């Protein structure tokens, strides 16, 4: 069976700006694929091209078997789409919003009523069905927006920064829901710049300045960077940072509470290096190594890119 999303050399230009440059990847069925990158990296632009609402300037993309440039309307019938703005009609009630989106996605009257009732129950919104959507809290709005985007049970779901501005508890609940949806066989593509969210994805694509830098599982992308992280206690955090910054083996130094967090590349032991450099100056106390995370991998990748100047 063909992958639900196949992207080959996709590009998008806005005037002089190359927003997306020669991006290629596949997303497998039932997978949660995270697109990670800073603002303006081209994540949303890529997503919009995959939804068939923005024409690619080059390359091609096939979504649920349809070419996004040639058959955008067929693509639209088979996808759900949710953005950080939630796109709810704030002056309609919860149930009216659901009915509306059910109708927009062509559900017939009887089927629609049954589906709306079912989804209200499943998402725990039944008690709030008559509440005006604008009066819901951020977390509930997000939940409703997700139900609206999936009311037609699409095989593919696009989420564009779906947790922006939502409290941590709601974010966790949201991600639990996303995993549930994926477990039922729906493919999910999500953009985010929260690194903790990135770690909840099955696979990640790192975007930076319009290019796709790396792709793989969170573990893979972290391991590929060969990063080691140490947390070092020192009486003079600022002095230690000044001293460590600029050393060729050290990729990143930052204050971390009363400690200094430093990252090395190429297998250099960060604790040994720190002891060596700090012993004479600011002094060094307890030091321990911690495993690198996706954020470290991302920062390392951006540094590599900036050093080589490889991105157009």
């Amino acid at each position, binding site marked *: 069976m063909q992958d639900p999303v196949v992207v080959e050399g996709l590009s998008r230009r*806005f005037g002089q700006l190359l927003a997306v440059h020669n991006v290629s990847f596949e997303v497998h069925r039932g997978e949660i694929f995270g697109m990670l990158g800073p603002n303006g990296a081209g994540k949303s632009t890529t997503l919009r091209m995959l939804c068939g*609402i923005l*024409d690619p300037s080059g390359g091609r993309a096939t979504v649920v078997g349809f070419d996004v440039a040639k058959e955008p*309307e067929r693509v*639209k019938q088979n996808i759900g*789409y949710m953005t950080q703005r*939630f796109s709810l009609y*704030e002056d309609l009630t919860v149930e009216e919003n659901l009915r509306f989106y059910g109708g927009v*996605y062509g559900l017939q009257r009887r089927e629609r009523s049954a589906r709306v009732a079912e989804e209200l129950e499943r998402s725990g919104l039944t008690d709030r069905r008559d509440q005006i959507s604008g009066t819901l809290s951020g977390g509930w709005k997000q939940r409703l927006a997700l139900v609206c985007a999936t009311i037609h049970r699409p095989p593919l779901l696009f989420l564009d920064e779906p947790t922006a501005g939502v409290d941590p508890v709601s974010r966790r609940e949201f991600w639990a829901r996303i995993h549930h949806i994926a477990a039922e066989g729906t493919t999910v593509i999500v953009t985010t710049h929260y690194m903790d969210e990135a770690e909840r994805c099955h696979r990640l694509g790192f975007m930076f300045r319009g290019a796709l830098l790396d792709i793989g599982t969170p573990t893979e992308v972290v391991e590929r960077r060969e990063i080691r992280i140490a947390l070092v206690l020192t009486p003079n955090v600022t002095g230690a940072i000044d001293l460590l910054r600029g050393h060729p083996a050290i990729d990143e130094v930052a204050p971390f509470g009363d400690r200094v967090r430093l990252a090395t590349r190429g297998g250099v032991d960060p604790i040994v290096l720190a002891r060596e450099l700090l012993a004479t100056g600011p002094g060094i106390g307890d030091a321990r190594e911690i495993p690198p995370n996706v954020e470290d991998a991302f920062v390392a990748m951006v540094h590599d890119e900036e050093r080589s100047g490889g991105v157009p």
Partner: protein
Amino acid sequence: MFAIAWKELIQLRRDRLTLGMMVGLPVVQLLLFGYAINTDVRNIATVVYDQDRSAESRGFVRRMEATGFYEIVGHVDSYDQIGVALRSREAMVALVVPPHFAAEVEAGRPAQLQLVVDGSDPQVVASATDTAMSLASARSSVLAVERFERQGLPTSTSSQVIAMEPTTWYNPDLRTAVFIVPGLVGVILTMTMVMFTSMAIARERERGTLEQLIVSPVRPVELTIGKILPYLAAGYLQMTLILVVGSWVFDVPIVGSIPLLYGLSAFFIAANLALGLFFSSLAKTQQQAMQMSFFFLLPNILLSGFMFPWEAMPAPARWLSLGLPLTHYMRVIRGVTLKGASLFELRYELIWLAGLLVVLTVIASMRFRKKLD
């Protein structure tokens, strides 16, 4: 204080639309008021019902035309045909010459001409009758002098030979309310319909729901018609309200067929809604949509014939006004409510309205593509 003024100026400079309006509005207003608005009616379309067909009657018609106030657009053979001409707005004035007019004049006996005037536009009535009356008395004097010279007879009486009897049809009391209220239906519909729809899409754009609709399988046609339908009903409600209150409070008659009026109104309302959708495709915010609607309303009020006689405008202003749905609707609603005009008599207005509707709908849906860029 200066910091605020400075910031305000910067913002104003960046907001091209507002800036454009600030400059554009005075210029457009100036041109419209100064150039297009003229309450002196000239070239009033006139038909002649000549039952005499004599040199004297033709001479009178020629002299009428020579004043520049009347433009003879045709000849008719009955009062019924005068009615048709007035209801279809082919003419606003009709001159009726009685049989044996020349013979009576020749004999020095008083003869009476009749001027039938469309009272649905009081401003036209005044210009039209005054000029005709003075023409009649001028000709009477000339005839009197001729008779004196030819026959050596002194003018027997002081009474003039040719009398002009003005008759006003359709609004005999020349009440302003009767003239204004039906027109107001058109103005209010233009204002609210354009504003409602232009804001409706801009609101969706602002809230981000438009993007959600664009990624849905809804077709542009479905979206356009779905957006228009509820407002069409709202338009009918407004129209009914104005007509009912107008008839109760201001005693404005509805002479013609109500189904015909409502049927033709559908074209007008839909055309305005399509125009609103077009505006909304240009506007990025609700505020801009609102500004555009107001900007559009001004020429409608001034050029459509709602306040100032259309006939009095210079040709470029009239051509421009033909592109406004309100100009045609003004004729439809006044024609039906005040004169009882039939569909056949209003056929050209129908063709215009339908044509404008098609053009506006095509433009609106071309602008609204299901893409983001």
